[in-house]
């Protein structure tokens, strides 16, 4: 790309962004600084804290239903005191159980691991790491957060509806979700769910458009695509996935809203509920599954890719070694992004899908193992003979690799349509996706929070609590989900409220109690992390140096308290890729340093 071509539009772009050219000098009001802020760093904090609040709620829900699963004959009066008729006699009612499971999935998949994860780190890292004053459109970026907030308010409100929130599983399959008379959870709560998700999709779209545009158009001088840190590459592909897959869920949700409220028959046909024959005809429930999983599968990678990107960065920085196979890392991210769109029907192997079609989805699904394995080997070879610093972020990054391997291997089982006849809808599936996308992504997120907390709040998190947090969470993740594989292989189905009267599975009572106990301990450890987080914002050890981790990337060239505009003077120019660690006897060489005369060739 030559310079004069770029100059053709340069005045237009600079005109649009002139106001951010210098660090901000004008006084901002509380509202414009903390509430309706257009500073990407503040929006990142807003996403992170909203995500943390949602994670506490979603995690608490899992504790409640694990209580039921571990102690099916319990009678805890305090539950009835809090939840009233939802926990009559101190036991969680089946309706409550389904509502808890549904909201646990919805909250953690969308509100925590999509908005909380991408929203936080895309906003924080894109302008800082590509060298821009702010996002391409700070205003749309602000709207992105506030649409997310609106979605959050609606979803939160749905928890307090008399008939309860949506309770048909986070995948909200019709006809259950389409017919209010089918269950309490399919009444008003379902409409709230759909409207909330529509707002969420708008938020994700506004965010995604900004992320892509900023990465492609607003890089600083010298920051070619191949000099981008892998975090940015990962966020880029995440945003592309979001922009192309969420609209399909929007279509599916709109049609479902019509089926619920306007009497259409998109998903409904030949249904009898409680003896009443419904007039709907000609619709297809499987159609919804296609529309849902066309989003649903890319969604898995929307959750996972940012974690992968941050893990790559944290591993390289703390191994004091260049990332192994930079271009292979980018290529495998690309391959995963493409394949993400071609495998959705592996969620539907036993739904009535043509087995001939299933064969292709098996092939495409198993192909994902290739880029995934490339990434794993690159992470391991990055660690190999590294000068490793076991910071909390580094531990979580290594934990991510461990969990990704463990959870990825069971994916090979589930990607096989024949094995899936036995394994579908069992605890094997629950164990698989919790490890590989749930816990692993949380580990990536924790790695990011521990690593970039000094950039977010100019203080460090407490290390002692961080190490306790890591070890309990890692051990807990395996202790919770490993046994579930056995239960699943034995055929124990998911989504049942009580297994104690079931001859085939009542032998798992002790195991279930064990899992529930660990789940509560792990939840307590997360609360400790939350305490650490908020305590350290105000009382943590102060950051005294601009570049605490000895890192090459641009965000560590900003002041300790960066203003809106990030760099007080000119935006730094970039001269090299971000992974020159341990090169020519130097521990690290920042991206802003020009290539020396006698420097050895680029890796």
């Amino acid at each position, binding site marked *: *790309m030559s*310079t004069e*071509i*770029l*100059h*053709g*539009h*340069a*005045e*237009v*772009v*600079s*005109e*649009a*962004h002139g106001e951010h050219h210098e660090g901000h000098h004008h006084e901002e009001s509380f509202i414009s600084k903390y509430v309706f802020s257009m500073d990407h760093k503040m929006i990142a904090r807003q996403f992170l804290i909203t995500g943390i609040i949602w994670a506490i709620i979603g995690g608490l829900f899992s504790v409640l239903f694990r209580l039921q699963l571990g102690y099916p004959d319990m009678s805890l009066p305090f539950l009835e005191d809090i939840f009233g008729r939802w926990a009559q006699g101190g036991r969680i009612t089946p309706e409550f159980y389904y509502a808890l499971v549904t909201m646990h999935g919805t909250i953690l998949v969308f509100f925590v691991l999509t908005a909380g994860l991408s929203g936080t780190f895309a906003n924080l890292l894109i302008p800082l790491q590509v*060298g*821009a*004053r702010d996002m*391409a*459109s700070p205003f749309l970026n602000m709207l992105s957060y506030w649409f997310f907030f609106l979605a959050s308010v609606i979803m939160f409100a749905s928890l307090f509806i008399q008939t309860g929130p949506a309770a048909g599983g986070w995948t909200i399959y019709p006809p259950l979700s389409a017919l209010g008379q089918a269950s309490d959870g399919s009444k008003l709560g379902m409409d709230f769910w759909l409207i909330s998700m529509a707002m969420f999709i708008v938020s994700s*779209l506004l965010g*995604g*458009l900004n992320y*892509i*545009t900023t990465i*492609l*158009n607003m*890089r*600083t*001088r*010298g*920051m*070619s695509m*191949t*000099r981008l840190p892998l975090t940015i590459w990962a966020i880029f592909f995440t945003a592309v996935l979001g*922009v*192309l*897959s969420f*609209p*399909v869920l*929007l*279509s*599916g949700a*709109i*049609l479902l809203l*019509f089926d619920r409220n*306007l*009497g*259409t*028959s*998109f998903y409904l046909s030949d249904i009898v509920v409680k003896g009443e024959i419904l*007039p*709907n*005809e*000609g*619709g*297809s429930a499987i*159609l919804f599954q*296609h*529309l849902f999983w066309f989003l649903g599968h890319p969604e898995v990678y929307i959750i996972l890719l940012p974690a992968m990107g941050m893990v790559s960065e944290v591993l390289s920085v703390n191994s004091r070694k260049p990332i192994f196979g930079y271009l292979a890392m980018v290529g495998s991210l690309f391959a995963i992004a493409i394949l993400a769109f071609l495998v959705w029907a592996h969620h539907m192997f036993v739904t009535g899908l043509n087995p001939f079609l299933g064969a292709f989805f098996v092939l495409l699904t198993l192909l994902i193992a290739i880029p995934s394995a490339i990434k794993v080997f690159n992470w391991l070879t990055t660690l190999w003979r590294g000068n490793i610093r076991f910071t909390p972020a580094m531990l979580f990054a290594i934990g991510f690799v461990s969990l990704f391997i463990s959870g990825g291997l069971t994916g090979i089982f589930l990607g096989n349509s024949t094995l899936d006849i036995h394994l579908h809808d069992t605890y094997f599936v629950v164990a698989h996706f919790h490890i590989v996308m749930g816990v692993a992504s949380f580990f990536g997120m924790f790695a990011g929070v521990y690593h970039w907390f000094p950039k977010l709040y100019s203080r460090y998190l407490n290390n002692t609590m961080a190490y306790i947090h890591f070890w309990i969470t890692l051990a807990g993740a395996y202790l919770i989900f490993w046994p579930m594989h056995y239960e699943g292989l034995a055929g124990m189905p998911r989504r049942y409220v009580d297994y104690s009267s079931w001859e085939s599975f009542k032998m798992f009572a002790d195991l279930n109690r064990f899992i529930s106990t660990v789940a509560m301990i792990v939840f307590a450890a997360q609360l400790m992390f939350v305490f650490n987080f908020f305590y350290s914002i105000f009382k943590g050890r102060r950051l005294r140096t601009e570049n605490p981790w000895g890192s090459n990337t641009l965000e560590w060239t900003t002041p300790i308290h960066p203003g809106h505009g990030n760099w007080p003077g000119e935006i730094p120019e970039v001269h090299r890729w971000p992974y020159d660690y341990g090169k020519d006897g130097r521990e690290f060489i920042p991206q802003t340093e020009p290539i020396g005369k006698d420097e050895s060739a680029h890796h």
Partner: protein
Amino acid sequence: MSTAQAQVQTKWWGGGKSPFNLEYGKVMMWYFLMSDAFTFGAFLISYGTIRFSQNYWPDPNKVFNAFPLMGHANLPLAFVSLMTFILIVSSVTMVLAVHAGHNMDKKGVVKWMAWTIVGGIAFLACQAWEWTHLITGEHAVLIDGKIQEIGTTVSRNPWGSEILGLEHGEHHVTKTGPVAFGGYFFGITGFHGFHVFSGVIINIIMLLMATNDVFERKGHYLMIEKAGLYWHFVDLVWVFVFLCFYLI
């Protein structure tokens, strides 16, 4: 100074002028349209899936044969052709508005934007008429052994196959048709109409900004170009909607 001068040193794009070498808002609009195309794509694919799972589908030449003020004259697809023509002409006037913007010709921009808005409103008016005609135009249908007169709605469809030998007044009596017809027709044309409506609103805002010299002060009419991208996209989507509901 500009942040747009990224990647001067490496030739990531070796093929001459880079397609990404655009003002950021325009790039963003393109990505949005790509996303929106997936929304419409999902709708149309759903429609195709359901339609081809049915044994019978109404003949558009029979359903859409009315024209305002023409009584019961049989004019298959005449009205929708007019609608399509109006929308395409409004795209032409939009092109002229963008062109005038390139030449910093404020009067031209105002004139052609006004015509584009007129075209958009005319299209919406046509759609309103067509919807009303379908919903209120009742046809004799045999339901549960009784002849009833029903219009086309999201849950009822009078356009089933004709029952030979059964007449009601001067018209053939039909069976009920697939209800998915109304659901998808009103759902998708409604969603498209919603896009046209928001496009008209955007165009009105652009017109007001142009008359208030906002773009003169900015020194360029790029906003008109971005609104134009959206408008052409809405037009293009209509071509597919037209194809799927009226022609096939």
